[in-house]
C-alpha cells in the first residue's frame, strides 16, 4: 500500500513511555495493602507535555500520582488534574498475579476494548468535551515482589484509518504562517498555555482571521468557527520532536475530525515548545487527506487499532529490576558499603574494604567477648563470621552479651552459637554468619574413654575450622580452653587475637607468627651470613627474627583445670561490664591494623612513643603486640612478649610433635598436662630453678654496723 497520487502515507512517530520508579513503588504497596490478589483493572493517569527539546521527544510518563489514591468501591478514580507540564491522559492498568497470567493476557482483545472506548467517545461527542480521551492508553504489568522485577507493556491505541491518511504537505510552522500570523499564533498559544484552565487541554482549534489575527478555540466551538469562515488549524500538543513526522496523538485526532465533522482535508498544527513558549520553528503545520471508511457507517463497527509499544524495536514487553531501591537487604548492603567508603574518602584512603569483606573470621566463644567482637567486625565490613560455643543462652546473658534477647533464653535456652549467628543475620542480612555448637577440648580435663571418639572429632573439626578461616579470635572464659586453638593457629600460621578479662583488667594481644612455616621476614631485611649464624644459635628454626609470643609464652606451667578446686568466689567469673566491650573493640581494631600492615602476622611490636615504630607510619597508627588495661585506673599499657622456646602451645617442639603425631598428641596433652611440661623442657627448667638455693639461713655474718632493734 504505497503512496497514491494524493501524497505519501502519513507516518506517525509512536508514543514513548517513561515510568518513574515512584509508580512501581506505589503499585507494589497498593498491591500488598489493598489489591492483594484482585486482578480487576485499575484506572490510572498518564502525563505528557508538548515536545520542548529539538533532540528528544516527550514521553508519556507515569508517576506516583498516576495511581488512584483512594481506589474504592466502584467509583473510578478521579483523573488527577494536570498542569501545563503534565497533561492528564486516562489509562487503564491490568496487573496480573503471575508471570504466566501476564504473558497469557489477550493483548489484542484488550487493545480492541480500549480502541472501542475511544471510538465511542468520538461518536458520542465526549471527545469534544474532554479531548484527552483521544490519547487513552493501556498498560499491562506483572510485579514480582519477591525479586522486584517489573514486567510491563504499554499500548497507545490508535484507530487505523483504512485507507490510511496521506500527507500533502508538512513544514515548520514558521514557514507556513506569515510573519503577522506567526506572531499572533505564538501569542495566543502562549496565553492558552499560561492559563490554568486550558494549559492541560491537549487538542484545540486555531482560528486565523483574514487580518492575520489568531484565536484559540476549544473543539466544542468548531461549528461556530466554521461559520466564521476563518482559516482553521486543528492543533494538538505534539510530543514528537522529529521534523518530518507528527506525533501519535494526531492519529486519533484525525479519526475524530473525520468521523465527527466529516472533513476530508485537514490542516493541522503540531504544537511544540521551547522553554515554555511556543516554538514555531520546531512546531509543524501540515495538510492531510483523510478518507472515511465505508465501514464507519455501521453503528456497530469499531475500527481496528494498533499501538503496542516496541521494546528496542521488538514487539516484546519490558522488564526492569528495582531491587536496589526496594529490596531491604540490598539497600542495607549498599548503605553499609557506602558508609565504609565514606570513611575511606574522608579519613583513610588506604582502607582496603574488599580485603575486610573477604576476611573469614572464626570466633571461639560467643559470650560477652564473642558478641561484641562479632558486632565490631560487621561494623568494619567483615562479612564472614563463624562462632563456636557449646553453651546455651542463660537468663543473665542478654544484659552483657549483646547478640541475645530474652527470647533466646526461653525453653532452656537456645544454643549460643546458633542464636548469635541468627542475631547477626537479623542485624545485617547479608552477613554470612554460621554457628558451630562444639566444646573445645582442654588439657587438664581428662577424657573418659567412651568420649574419646567425640573429643577427637571435635579436635579434628577445630583443626578444620582454623584452616578454613583467616583470622581467629580466642574469646573463651578459661585459660586452658585457649591451649588447643593456640596450637592449631600456630601450626597453621593464622592471625590470632586473644582477649581475656579479669575483674577489672583485660588483656588483648595478637599472637606471633607460627614457628615452622617459612615466613616473609627473610625478605624484609637482607640477612648477612654472620647474623644468620648468630640467629641460628639462639633458635633452632629458620626464623631470622624472634617471633612474638602467644598467650602461653610467658607461662611456666602448662594449662590445667582451672575450674576445679577453686574457691567459690573464684569460680564465678565476674567482670566489670565495661571491660568486655572495651577489650572486644580493641581486639577488632587490632585485627584491622594487622590486616593493613604490610608485614601482617609477622609485623613487629610497635609502641606509642618508640623511635623504632616511627618508620612504619601506618595510617591506622601503631600495631602493638599486647595491650593490658586496668579499668580501675582507666589506663592502658602497651607491652611486648617474645616467643618462648618452651611454650606449651606454640614452641617449635610442640608444633612439630603435633604435626608428627596429630590427634594422639593432643589426646595425650589433654589427659596428662605434665606431658606438655616434660616435652617442652619446662619440667627441667623448674627443677633447675628449685635446685638453686639461696643460703639465707647460713649467713651469720652480721654487719657490725647493724643495730638490732
Amino acid at each position, binding site marked *: 500500500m504505497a503512496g497514491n497520487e494524493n501524497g505519501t502515507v502519513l507516518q506517525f512517530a509512536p508514543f514513548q513511555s517513561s515510568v*518513574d520508579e515512584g509508580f512501581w513503588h506505589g503499585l507494589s504497596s497498593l498491591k500488598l495493602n489493598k489489591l492483594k490478589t484482585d486482578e480487576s483493572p485499575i484506572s490510572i493517569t498518564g502525563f505528557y507535555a508538548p515536545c520542548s527539546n529539538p533532540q528528544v521527544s516527550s514521553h508519556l510518563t507515569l508517576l506516583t500520582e498516576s495511581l488512584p489514591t483512594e481506589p474504592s468501591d466502584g467509583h473510578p478514580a478521579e483523573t488527577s488534574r494536570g498542569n501545563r507540564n503534565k497533561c492528564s491522559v486516562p489509562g487503564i492498568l491490568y496487573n496480573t498475579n503471575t508471570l504466566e497470567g501476564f504473558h497469557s493476557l489477550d493483548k489484542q482483545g484488550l487493545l480492541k476494548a480500549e480502541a472501542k472506548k475511544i471510538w465511542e467517545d468520538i461518536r458520542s461527542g465526549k471527545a469534544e468535551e474532554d479531548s484527552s480521551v483521544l490519547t487513552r492508553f493501556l498498560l499491562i504489568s506483572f510485579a514480582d515482589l519477591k525479586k522486584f522485577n517489573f514486567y510491563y507493556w504499554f499500548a497507545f491505541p490508535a484507530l487505523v484509518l483504512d485507507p490510511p491518511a496521506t500527507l500533502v504537505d508538512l513544514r515548520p510552522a514558521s514557514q507556513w504562517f506569515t510573519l503577522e500570523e506567526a506572531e499572533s499564533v505564538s501569542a495566543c498559544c502562549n496565553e492558552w498555555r499560561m492559563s490554568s484552565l486550558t494549559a492541560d487541554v491537549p487538542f484545540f482549534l486555531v482560528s486565523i482571521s483574514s487580518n492575520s489575527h489568531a484565536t484559540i478555540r476549544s473543539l466544542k466551538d468548531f461549528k461556530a468557527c466554521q461559520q466564521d469562515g476563518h482559516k482553521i488549524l486543528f492543533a494538538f500538543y505534539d510530543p514528537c520532536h*522529529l521534523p518530518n513526522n507528527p506525533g501519535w496523538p494526531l492519529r486519533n485526532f484525525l479519526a475524530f475530525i473525520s468521523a465527527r465533522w466529516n472533513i476530508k482535508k485537514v490542516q493541522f498544527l503540531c504544537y511544540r515548545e521551547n522553554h515554555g513558549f511556543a516554538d514555531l520553528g520546531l512546531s509543524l503545520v501540515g495538510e492531510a487527506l483523510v478518507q472515511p471508511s465505508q465501514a464507519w457507517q455501521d453503528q456497530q463497527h469499531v475500527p481496528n487499532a494498533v499501538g503496542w509499544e516496541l521494546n528496542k524495536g521488538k514487539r516484546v514487553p519490558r522488564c*526492569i529490576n528495582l531491587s536496589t531501591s526496594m529490596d531491604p537487604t540490598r539497600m542495607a548492603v549498599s548503605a553499609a558499603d557506602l558508609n565504609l567508603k565514606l570513611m575511606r574518602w574522608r579519613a583513610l584512603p588506604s582502607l582496603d574494604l574488599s580485603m575486610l569483606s573477604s576476611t573469614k573470621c572464626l570466633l571461639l566463644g560467643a559470650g560477652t567477648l564473642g558478641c561484641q567482637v562479632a558486632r565490631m567486625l560487621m561494623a568494619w565490613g567483615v562479612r564472614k563470621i563463624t562462632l563456636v560455643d557449646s553453651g546455651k543462652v542463660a537468663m543473665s546473658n542478654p544484659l552483657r552479651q549483646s547478640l541475645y534477647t530474652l527470647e533466646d533464653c526461653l525453653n532452656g535456652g537456645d544454643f549460643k552459637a546458633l542464636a548469635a549467628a541468627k542475631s547477626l543475620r537479623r542485624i545485617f542480612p547479608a552477613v554470612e554468619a554460621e554457628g558451630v555448637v562444639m566444646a573445645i577440648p582442654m588439657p587438664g580435663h581428662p577424657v573418659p574413654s567412651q568420649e574419646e571418639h567425640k573429643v577427637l572429632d571435635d579436635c579434628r573439626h577445630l583443626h578444620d575450622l582454623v584452616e578454613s578461616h583467616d583470622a581467629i579470635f580466642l574469646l573463651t572464659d578459661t585459660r586452658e580452653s585457649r591451649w588447643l586453638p593456640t596450637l592449631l593457629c600456630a601450626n597453621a600460621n593464622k592471625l590470632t587475637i586473644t582477649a581475656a578479662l579479669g575483674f577489672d583488667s583485660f588483656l588483648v594481644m595478637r599472637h606471633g607468627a607460627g614457628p615452622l612455616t617459612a615466613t616473609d621476614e627473610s625478605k624484609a631485611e637482607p640477612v648477612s651470613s654472620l647474623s644468620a649464624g648468630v640467629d641460628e644459635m639462639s633458635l633452632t628454626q629458620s626464623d631470622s627474627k624472634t617471633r612474638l609470643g602467644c598467650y602461653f609464652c610467658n607461662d611456666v606451667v602448662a594449662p590445667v583445670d582451672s575450674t576445679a578446686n577453686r574457691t567459690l568466689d573464684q569460680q564465678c567469673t565476674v567482670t566489670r561490664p565495661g571491660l568486655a566491650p572495651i577489650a572486644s573493640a580493641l581486639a577488632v581494631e587490632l585485627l584491622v591494623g594487622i590486616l593493613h600492615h604490610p608485614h601482617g602476622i609477622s609485623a613487629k611490636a610497635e609502641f606509642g612513643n618508640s623511635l623504632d615504630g616511627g618508620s612504619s607510619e601506618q595510617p591506622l597508627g601503631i600495631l602493638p603486640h599486647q595491650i593490658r588495661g586496668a579499668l580501675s585506673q582507666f589506663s592502658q599499657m602497651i607491652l611486648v612478649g617474645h616467643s618462648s622456646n618452651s611454650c606449651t602451645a606454640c614452641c617449635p617442639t610442640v608444633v612439630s610433635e603435633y604435626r608428627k603425631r596429630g590427634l594422639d598428641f593432643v589426646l595425650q596433652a589433654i589427659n596428662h598436662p605434665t606431658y606438655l611440661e616434660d616435652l617442652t623442657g619446662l619440667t627441667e627448667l623448674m627443677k633447675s630453678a628449685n635446685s638453686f638455693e639461696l643460703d639465707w639461713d647460713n649467713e651469720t655474718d652480721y654487719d657490725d654496723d647493724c643495730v638490732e632493734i
Partner: protein
Amino acid sequence: MNQTVSIVILKVVMVSDQETCDGSLSLSDFRIAANAFTEKWNKFNSAFPEWYWIDCSNRLGFAAHGVVDGYLSLQNVFIRRSLEEEHDEGSSNDDDELFDDATLVQSTSDDGDQYHFHVVYSPSYKVPVLYFHAHSTDGQPLNLDEIEKNLPTKSAKVLLESKWTFITQEEHPYLNRPWYMLHPCGTNEWMKLLLLAGDNSMATNGTEQYFISWFSVVGQVFGLKLPFEMLKSIG
C-alpha cells in the same frame, strides 16, 4: 619614643550573615537563592529543561506556618549513552497485530538515559545538596558504575576523584527512596574557599552568588554548565 595613637576605623561590612563567613547557607536564604537561580536558568539556559520548585509544605498533612519545605527539581535531562554496539536485528514475533503503514519505524539510535536532579537543603550541614537519579529509557535505574561511565566530560572524572566530591547513596528526604547524592560534608569548606577567592563586595547578592557558585562546581560533574550570560547577570 613617639606615642602615636592611631585610630583604626573599622569598616563594618554588612554581609548577609552566613554565606560568606563559614561557607554555609540558611534555609530561608536557600529558598530565595533557589528562586533566583531558577528564574535565571530558565531564562538563559535553553539547552536544558527547566527547574521547578516542588513544594512539600503539606506533606505532613498540615502546613507548618512559615516553614519552607521543598526542593528544586530538574527532571529529564537527557544524557547520551557512550556508544554500545547493539546489532539486535531480531525479527518481531508471533503477534497477530496488523502491520501498519502509518507507523514510523524508528531506529533505536535514540539511546540515552534520563537524569533527574534535585537540590535539597540539608539542615544539619546547612548547605544545599545535589541529589540525582538516572534511568534508561525503559525505566531501569542506573547504578553508580553505569552513571560514572556515561558522565559527559572528562573533567567530571577528575572531580569524582577529587578531595571534595564524593558520591554516596541516601534516602531522598522527600521521596523516601535511595537516590545518589554528592556528599555535603565537604561543601562548606570548598564554598568558603570559592567565596573568598571571588569578589565579595556584592553583599546584596551574596545569597545568589552562593548558589550560583555552588552549582557551578557540582553541576560540572554532570556537564550541567551555567551559561555565561547567567553568570554575568548576578549583581
